[in-house]
């Protein structure tokens, strides 16, 4: 289990972004990394169709030293394609092993995520509830983002976004609400984000699609 914990932490420094689309194109593979004020996570998934993806999810909650390793399924419940804008609604579910101080439990989470974007504006919301079959984890978390592109770039050019992320975790006493201003760079199949949170934590997210 030590190996599993180490692997989760190591992978987490490489990679899951809750604010990027969790499904790729048909036959596409994605690696998503997220290192924010609360946790480090990685999500590597494969999309048989644009409607769902399945893959490994590893998360490490730094404050409580909880490592989660699981299988995650992402479903696109609904997409709205409009001229100049798009909206999406997703359902995310995961099951796997929760580890804390050498103790292991079965855990799962489920939640919905939605986003709406034009080429100039972006807004998203996501929630999820984690629960293990013992006392390792029982946690609700929700996050929202707003973003604006200072310039509108065409395909093949560097896209830049200025965003504000707000995360609400009621169980995190003293850090229930964390705000993180960040900048997103997006070019081709690669996306990177950098920010600093209100509790002075560095945010770094990276996504690569293949």
């Amino acid at each position: 289990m030590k190996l599993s914990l180490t692997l989760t932490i190591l992978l987490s420094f490489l990679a899951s972004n809750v604010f990027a689309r969790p499904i790729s194109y048909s036959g596409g593979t994605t690696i998503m990394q997220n290192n924010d004020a609360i946790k480090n996570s990685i999500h590597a998934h494969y999309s048989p169709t644009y409607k769902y993806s399945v893959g490994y999810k590893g998360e490490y909650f730094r404050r409580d030293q909880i490592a989660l390793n699981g299988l995650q399924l992402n479903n696109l419940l609904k997409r709205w394609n409009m001229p100049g804008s798009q909206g999406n609604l997703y359902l995310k579910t995961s099951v796997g092993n929760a580890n804390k101080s050498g103790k292991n439990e079965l855990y799962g989470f489920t939640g919905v995520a939605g986003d709406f974007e034009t080429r100039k504006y972006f807004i998203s919301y996501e929630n999820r509830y984690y629960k293990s079959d013992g006392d390792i984890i029982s946690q609700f978390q929700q996050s929202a983002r707003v973003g604006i592109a200072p310039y509108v770039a065409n395909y093949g050019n560097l896209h830049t976004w200025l965003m504000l992320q707000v995360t609400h975790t009621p169980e995190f006493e003293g850090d229930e609400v964390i705000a993180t201003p960040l900048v997103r760079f997006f070019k081709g199949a690669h996306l990177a984000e950098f920010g600093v949170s209100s509790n002075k934590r560095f945010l770094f997210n990276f996504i690569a699609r293949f």
Partner: protein
Amino acid sequence: MFRKFITVFSLIFLINTSSAFAKEINVDVNGLVCEFCAVTIEKNFKKKDEIKEVKVDLDQKKVFLTFKDGKDLSDKEIADTIKNNGYNVVKINREKDD
């Protein structure tokens, strides 16, 4: 000398007209708002043997397809490729046909 000139001129003319009349189609698509949308469309059309070149223009909300000589895709195949990757076809415009 004049014959040589005519031969060279004819060859150049044939080469130029051949590429000038390569079949091109452009498609109006709804939902094309981001870099990744464009990557998705581009990658999936590039997998097809019939396609010589794919260009996605987010400003115009269009996908431009150029076919290899003598090749084509039906409107249904084009629409299915875009639809099966999560986007909506508004209109397929066949501008230059052989």
